[in-house]
């Protein structure tokens, strides 16, 4: 189909779809006036029955924990898929032992080199803080993990590719990722072992507002942090490794 034909087809179907969607939107509650019975119930019971302040965290890791287990495995499978697709060409090129920063033409001054390296520590600490207080303040395993992914990328910015690939060791972080995914499932299965219900919150809930509280919510939160953080690190490492291989192919 030509570009012109596609544009005409798009405009016709888009006008129709937009009209149908806006008609459907008139059946939604007007902006700012939503209220559902389930919402009210969840807001009432979460702190009382789970001893956590952050309601989305409680929903993710306890009340609808089974959904999150599914999301986790989408994440796990995607990372595995990226590794699988990109490893298909690894055999064709051998990796260069020479570090990138010895390449002539790339000169980093002191500030350019040490500012990102210092940021690495700062971002990593912030990521762990976000994850560790996921049940009290905004944050949690997912957010902390995504932030941590950018921490090690700062090593690449500051020092260079070779140092980055040695810090973000793919084999090591791969195992951490699998460990995180396993821990989530293991918490669920051991709860089933004890009580007969998958992912039931069996541990003592602790005091509301304490750093460690919420029972299994806290454990799953940490497991998710480990998985997401290592997953993003592996992704960054694999893609940067690809740019290096591509450069070598073109030479």
């Amino acid at each position, binding site marked *: 189909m030509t*570009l012109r034909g596609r544009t005409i087809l798009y405009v016709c179907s888009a006008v129709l779809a937009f009209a149908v969607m*806006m008609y459907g939107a008139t059946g939604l509650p007007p902006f700012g006036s939503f209220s559902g019975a389930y919402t009210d119930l969840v807001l009432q019971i979460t702190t009382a029955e789970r001893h956590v302040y952050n309601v989305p965290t409680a*929903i*993710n890791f306890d009340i609808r924990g089974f959904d999150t287990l599914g999301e986790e495995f989408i994440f796990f499978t995607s990372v595995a898929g990226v590794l699988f697709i990109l490893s298909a060409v690894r055999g064709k090129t051998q990796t260069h032992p020479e570090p990138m920063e010895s390449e002539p033409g790339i000169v980093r001054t002191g500030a350019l080199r040490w500012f990102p390296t210092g940021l690495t520590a700062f971002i990593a600490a912030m990521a762990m803080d976000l994850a560790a207080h996921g049940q009290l303040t905004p944050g949690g395993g997912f957010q902390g993990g995504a932030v941590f992914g950018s921490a090690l990328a700062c090593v690449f910015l500051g020092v260079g590719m070779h140092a980055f690939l040695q810090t973000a060791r793919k084999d090591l972080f791969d195992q951490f990722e699998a460990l995180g995914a396993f821990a989530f499932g293991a918490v669920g299965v051991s709860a089933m072992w004890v009580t007969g219900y998958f992912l039931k919150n069996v541990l003592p809930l602790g005091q509301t507002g304490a750093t460690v509280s919420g029972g299994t919510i806290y454990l799953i939160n940490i497991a998710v942090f480990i998985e997401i953080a290592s997953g993003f690190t592996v992704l960054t490492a694999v893609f940067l490794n690809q740019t290096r291989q591509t450069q070598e192919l073109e030479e």
Partner: protein
Amino acid sequence: MSNWTLYVPYAIAFWLFAIGCFGITQSRSLVHTILCLTVVQASTYTLLLSIDFHAKAAAPIYSSNYAPGRPAVDPILHALTLTDIVVGATVTALLLALTLQIHRRKGTIDPQRISEMRG
């Protein structure tokens, strides 16, 4: 419909959906296609978050200052959106890896010049 401005957030979500789809139909590069797909994805976040907004409510995170059980916006859609953003980023990475592989095999990432993607 008493006040049409109360439906603007939904219209924005549908607009993001439509403009993302437009980008996909016009795309001459698979990287551009993937970016358009993330715009389409953003429309779902906009729709979810504009449905659950409540005018006289706080964020669903309590503290000792804001006692548990007081009005807050729907936490379920927030939980859905936050997991979806993280998982969506990884799926984008998977698509980019596929693009890299297509470039190696075919020497181009223009969907109109790849015979398998011609439609």
